[in-house]
């Protein structure tokens, strides 16, 4: 008897892990193929793009996991971050033309990105307190649908509001750091790209540490697993929800700011990053922060592979197709079942 049951559980366990096994197998093959076709530069490109998507997707996963909001205004946080960085960096740059300083020109970009993070955090608190908090008090049913529609509304208001105030012009910079490209292997990478990657990795690492080992971080995870249980142990839901939303918005703003050299600031710049972040989150499993990190790299891998082996214009098609395939096999995403534990209740 015992033997039969253990055998069955082994098979069902393998079945649960099957999508992960298949995906990691194909990922390794793709990675090797990219290396042989594109060389070091394409491999680096994949990793750096992956870091970008991961940072955005982590915010989405966090907001969905803790607050049950399918956040479709995440791209607008990216856009606001890009604008804030532009409007803080260009004056600093002008000042540095007249007063050259080695140290300040290294620090100015960091200052601009930091300012974007602060602005994002404030924007997050405002949106949460003014829009979602009242909605939460009034909604009893259909919260997810209501919240989803609201985020779409917020997205329209923010991008069109920006269009109204600042106009549809593109505002960009050619680069943050006036330094030579760095050689890695046979490839040359601009310092800006490496810095953007480093920033996203540091932020993800900090977030990971925060969620894992601090009292408030643990409370955030607790709320995502059981809201009632969280209240019963004395966790203030409103505080945790505002904090989470503000963190996610700040992270999106920071990635918008640190990628200003790549994505110029204009009212609808958030669209592309938003869609990619959603590919990642849907494929990895909604609300799964760790899955979002891995998913970010998988999507980047698919993108680079498509660009290399198919055509650049197919870049969005293939990741979407793979996402649909994954959802057909594993409806809750690659890592979907692991978030909430083995058994519910």
């Amino acid at each position, binding site marked *: 008897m015992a033997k039969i049951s253990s055998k069955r559980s082994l098979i069902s366990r393998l079945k649960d892990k099957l999508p992960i096994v298949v995906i990691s197998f194909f990922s390794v093959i793709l990675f090797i193929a990219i290396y042989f076709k594109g060389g070091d530069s394409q491999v680096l490109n994949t990793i750096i793009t992956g870091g970008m998507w991961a940072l955005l997707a982590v915010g989405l996963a966090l907001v969905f996991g803790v607050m049950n909001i399918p956040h479709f205004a995440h791209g607008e946080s990216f856009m606001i971050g890009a604008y804030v960085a532009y409007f803080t960096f260009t004056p600093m740059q002008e000042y540095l033309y007249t007063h050259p300083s080695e140290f300040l020109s290294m620090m100015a970009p960091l200052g601009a990105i930091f300012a974007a993070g602060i602005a994002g955090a404030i924007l997050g608190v405002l949106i949460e307190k003014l829009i979602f908090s009242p909605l939460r008090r009034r909604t009893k049913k259909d919260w997810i649908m209501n919240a989803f529609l609201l985020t779409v509304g917020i997205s329209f208001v923010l991008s069109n509001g920006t269009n109204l105030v600042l106009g549809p012009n593109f505002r960009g910079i050619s680069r943050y750091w006036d330094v030579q490209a760095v050689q890695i292997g046979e490839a040359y990478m601009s310092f800006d790209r490496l810095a953007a990657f480093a920033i996203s990795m540091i932020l993800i690492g900090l977030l990971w540490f925060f969620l894992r080992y601090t009292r408030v971080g*643990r409370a955030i995870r607790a709320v995502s697993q059981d809201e009632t249980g969280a209240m019963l142990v004395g966790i203030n839901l409103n505080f945790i929800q505002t904090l989470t939303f503000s963190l996610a918005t700040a992270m999106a703003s920071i990635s918008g700011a640190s990628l200003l050299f790549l994505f110029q600031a204009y009212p609808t710049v958030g669209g592309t990053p938003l869609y990619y972040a959603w590919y990642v989150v849907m494929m990895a499993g909604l609300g799964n922060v760790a899955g979002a990190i891995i998913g970010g790299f998988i999507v980047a891998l698919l993108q680079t592979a498509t660009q290399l082996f198919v055509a650049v214009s197919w870049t969005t098609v293939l990741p979407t197709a793979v996402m649909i395939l994954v959802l057909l096999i594993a409806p809750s995403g690659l890592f979907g079942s692991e978030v909430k534990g083995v058994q519910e209740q």
Partner: protein
Amino acid sequence: MLELNNINAGYDFLQVLWDVSFHIDEGEMVALIGPNGAGKSTSLRTIAGLITPISGEVLFHNKVINNELAHMISRMGISYISEKLNLFTGMSVQENLLLGAYAIRDRDVQLETLAYIFSLFPRLEERKDQLAGTMSGGERKMLAIARGMMSKPQLMLVDEPSLGLQPNLTSDVFSALRQLRDRGVTVLIVEQNVNATLSFTDRAYVLEQGKIVMEGPSKEIKANKHVRNAYLGI
């Protein structure tokens, strides 16, 4: 210590509790018994702040608490162990316990309480790195009670501690609760396992169709003819 005065409460349009009043004194172990759907859990949820009563008041240490949010009530020293347990199933046993002490900011006090809990439930220490969701029913119930104790509550509300447990585990859970009372924690138990509950508690209230129909020392309730007929099947 805790007093409910003429509480009317329910869910949306369905009223469950009708003019319910009872009180618990410091250091007592009180049972609330009654059939399914009588409003036992609703009473506990009202005290814990998960439901706001339609009318009436809940007093804790002579302070009105029925308008406070659930997390504030928990921080005042009332710990509610719900029927569903509401564990954080994707987290380890230790993390669940540390979250139980969320309101205590002092890390040393947290660890001290954790050590005490582990001495009380050695089983939980053996499994401290296991995910809460992968444990057996009895262990989960134990974990829920232990998590409720981590906040050093003055009053514990325990909903159906014996539900779904095999008999020897039931008595384990009851003796854990008993130990709690011996340490000066006041306990209110809601149970369907009437016989065992009445032999463990000091006083009892009988709740039927949302109204308190009987109250008294557990021994007297146990000897009562109506209770013997309806609940004990004797």
